[in-house]
């Protein structure tokens, strides 16, 4: 291309200045985690399906009886509007265990108990008869998922149990739902359907798959149990990027009978929910409706709509109440957040990065339970987020249960807004919901969650890097402790520190922090406080390397740390040698090789 003239040079400069407002912030690992979870890569051809399901005679008879009674009494409400409560029409969600006498579900479980590995992604389904959550956890060897482990969490004893079934699914990605009628937990992925019998501790692979085109952009986005039919219902929606999106289309709905391994399409009539960025459902037993939270995108931007689906008549209706803008767990306002059904308040609870809200179907009313205070999406510095903490609903103790990492398990009381620790982290120093501005915490013991900065520098942990795994594609031999959730992921704009997601200083014998206020635009910093090393001496050594700016002494949390500015380009690398961890924003390889070579 020809040499630029004066105007073009000026234009380039002016465009660069103009583009300073571009939304360049991002948390790469979380974005990747989100896509990998939400859109697992498909690799196999989908199997055949059988279109006819076997109805459950008992429920049909019950429904007929109830319907006839209701009609005779002139009580039947027809159509898609949510009915006033019709308790006779809606059977109980299912048998529910109770805690044995003497149980103390509010007391933390044993600290020294075995826990799932670090790849634990959260409670997935609740076995109502057993009173336990079922969780599938990926086993990682380097980057590869080499298997899964099945774990259960007893909500009465707050104890984990590693299950040892005869066989297990190949990976945990997918949707889990407990089928009350069949008393099994069902896992559906794009290529497998499995059923887990907790009492027998056996996984059974089923033969059929959701009848959706594996080459399409349609994915199973939601999976719920319908107590009326005793079947589970799957919603498959087109989740397409804008370039691929060819207009709104309703989700596909299917019921699945695990006993006969058959999928049956659910007829839909009228105007349907058209969440072009995904629809998530939960079954609302108070109204016998599926409540859908649909993420939409229109001329006015991204938003959400609330839809109700009547499984009996196959009709949709859009809720009249304005739907709050509860961003998804991942900060996107273009994907649905998490949902549970609160069996006490008989409301659908939605939570994500944008706070928490509850929808009362019978009153068609949304109530904001907690205002979100993390208004910016994933590109922004991490802030308080309920989505990070909560997984699923515990119907035995009537509360939400969630985790911060594989270590700590928490409960959130929807009525009081109070947190309770159910399993303490093994390692001290982890952050708590209170640290993140998420509300009061009932401490398991005083001082459980010391402030991060207060730990700088830490010489008390005595932990060395022993685990090897791969971060950023770096060979494991060059890494210390790594893996998702245990590495610093980004600058925290709320306090002068890097964020350690799911990790604690006890994991690390290095603390990394940086003040952000003095950083020039497009300049990034590494800072370190290294156990066993003189940081001043290290800083001097590193500052002599090409690509590293002069060391700056900064005060972080009342402690002095040496901060080095990278003068190179962008790139994020984590390297560990001996007990030194480097978090470097630069091209990396030559620089870090130099750093490693220069270490004392």
């Amino acid at each position, binding site marked *: 291309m020809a040499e630029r003239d004066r105007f073009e040079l000026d234009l380039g400069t002016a465009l660069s*200045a103009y583009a300073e407002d571009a939304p360049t912030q991002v948390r790469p690992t979380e974005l990747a985690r989100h896509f990998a979870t939400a859109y697992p890569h498909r690799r196999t051809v989908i199997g055949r399906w059988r279109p006819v399901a076997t109805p459950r005679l008992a429920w049909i008879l019950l429904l007929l009886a109830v319907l006839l009674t209701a009609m005779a009494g002139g009580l039947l409400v027809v159509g898609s509007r949510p009915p006033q409560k019709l308790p006779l029409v809606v059977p109980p969600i299912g048998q529910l265990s109770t805690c044995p006498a003497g149980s103390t579900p509010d007391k933390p479980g044993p600290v020294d108990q075995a826990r799932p590995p670090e790849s634990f992604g959260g409670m997935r389904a609740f076995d109502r008869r057993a009173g336990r959550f079922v969780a599938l956890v990926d086993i990682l060897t380097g980057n590869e998922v080499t298997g899964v482990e099945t774990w259960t969490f007893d909500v009465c004893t707050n104890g984990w149990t590693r299950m040892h079934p005869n066989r297990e699914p190949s990976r945990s990605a997918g949707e889990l739902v407990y089928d009350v009628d069949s008393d099994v937990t069902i896992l559906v992925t794009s290529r497998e359907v499995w059923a887990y019998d907790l009492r027998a501790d056996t996984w059974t692979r089923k033969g059929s798959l959701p009848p959706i085109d594996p080459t399409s952009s349609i994915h199973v986005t939601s999976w719920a149990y319908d107590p009326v039919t005793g079947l589970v219902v799957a919603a498959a929606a087109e*989740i397409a*990027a804008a370039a691929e999106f060819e207009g709104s289309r309703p989700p596909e709905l299917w019921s699945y009978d695990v006993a006969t391994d058959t999928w049956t399409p659910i007829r839909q009539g009228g105007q349907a929910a058209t969440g072009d960025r995904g629809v998530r459902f939960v079954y609302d037993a108070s109204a016998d409706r599926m409540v859908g939270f649909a993420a939409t995108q229109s001329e006015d931007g991204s938003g959400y709509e609330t839809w109700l689906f009547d499984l009996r008549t196959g009709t949709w209706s859009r809720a009249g109440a304005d739907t709050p803008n509860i961003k998804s767990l991942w900060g996107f306002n*273009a994907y649905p957040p998490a949902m549970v059904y609160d069996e006490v308040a008989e409301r659908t609870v939605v939570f994500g990065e944008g706070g928490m809200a509850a929808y009362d179907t019978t009153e068609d009313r949304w109530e904001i339970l907690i205002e979100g205070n993390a208004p910016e999406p994933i590109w922004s510095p991490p802030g308080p987020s309920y989505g990070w903490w909560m997984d699923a609903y515990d119907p035995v103790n009537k509360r939400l249960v969630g985790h911060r990492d594989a270590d700590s398990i928490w409960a959130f009381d929807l009525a009081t807004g109070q947190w309770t620790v159910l399993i303490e982290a093994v390692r001290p120093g982890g952050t708590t919901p209170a640290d993140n501005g998420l509300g009061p915490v009932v401490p398991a013991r005083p001082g459980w969650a010391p402030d991060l900065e207060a730990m700088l520098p830490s010489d008390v942990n005595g932990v060395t890097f022993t685990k090897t795994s*791969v971060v950023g594609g770096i060979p494991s031999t060059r890494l210390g402790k790594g893996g998702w959730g245990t590495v610093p992921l980004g600058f925290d704009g709320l306090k002068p520190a890097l964020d350690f997601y799911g990790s604690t200083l006890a994991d690390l014998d290095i603390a990394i922090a940086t003040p952000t206020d003095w950083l020039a635009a497009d300049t990034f910093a590494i800072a370190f406080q290294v156990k066993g090393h003189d940081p001043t001496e290290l800083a001097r050594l590193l500052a002599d390397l090409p690509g590293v700016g002069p060391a700056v002494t900064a005060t972080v949390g009342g402690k002095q740390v040496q901060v080095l500015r990278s003068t190179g380009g962008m790139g994020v690398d984590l390297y560990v040698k001996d007990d030194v961890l480097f978090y470097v924003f630069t091209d990396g390889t030559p620089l870090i090789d130099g750093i490693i070579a220069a270490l004392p």
Partner: protein
Amino acid sequence: MNGQVMGGQRVVTTVELAGAGDEVAFARLVATYHADMARVAFVACGDRELAEDAVQAAWLVAWRKLHSLRDPDRVRPWLLAVTANEARQIVRRRRGPVVEIDVEVRGDPRGDPSTGIERLDLRRALAHLSPDDRALLAMHYLVDLSSDELGAAVGTSASTARTRLCRAVDRLRKELRDG
């Protein structure tokens, strides 16, 4: 952030791993190229929120389609092309060929005084261009794509891309210097 550093075998390996569903490799691509994509989307959309949506959508496309990229060395122009495409789609869905640019002007509204181009004037002038042309300008002047890469990004030959770029620049020149 700017993503001009990953190259050679490293980028090939990273793209191949990411295309196969490797989260870590994909995160590395995000870390490397997101800022450039955001700048292109911002200029193309003229709106910060729309740009965010466009880049989100572009990364989703990348996650799902990266395996089909035949030349991993060209992942950067490919990502920018996907971004420009998503930006165009999103702007189009806001109705009208030209999106109203309502970005809050931060800092000095005059922009860089040394250029003689005031930021407000630039904003107005850009608003008269199509999203495609704005993306083209951004891809050339902000992230330095070559003519060949520009052509590939907008689905034309390099010469056609150059011609379009020249026209867009001439239009801006007229508005900013003569207008």
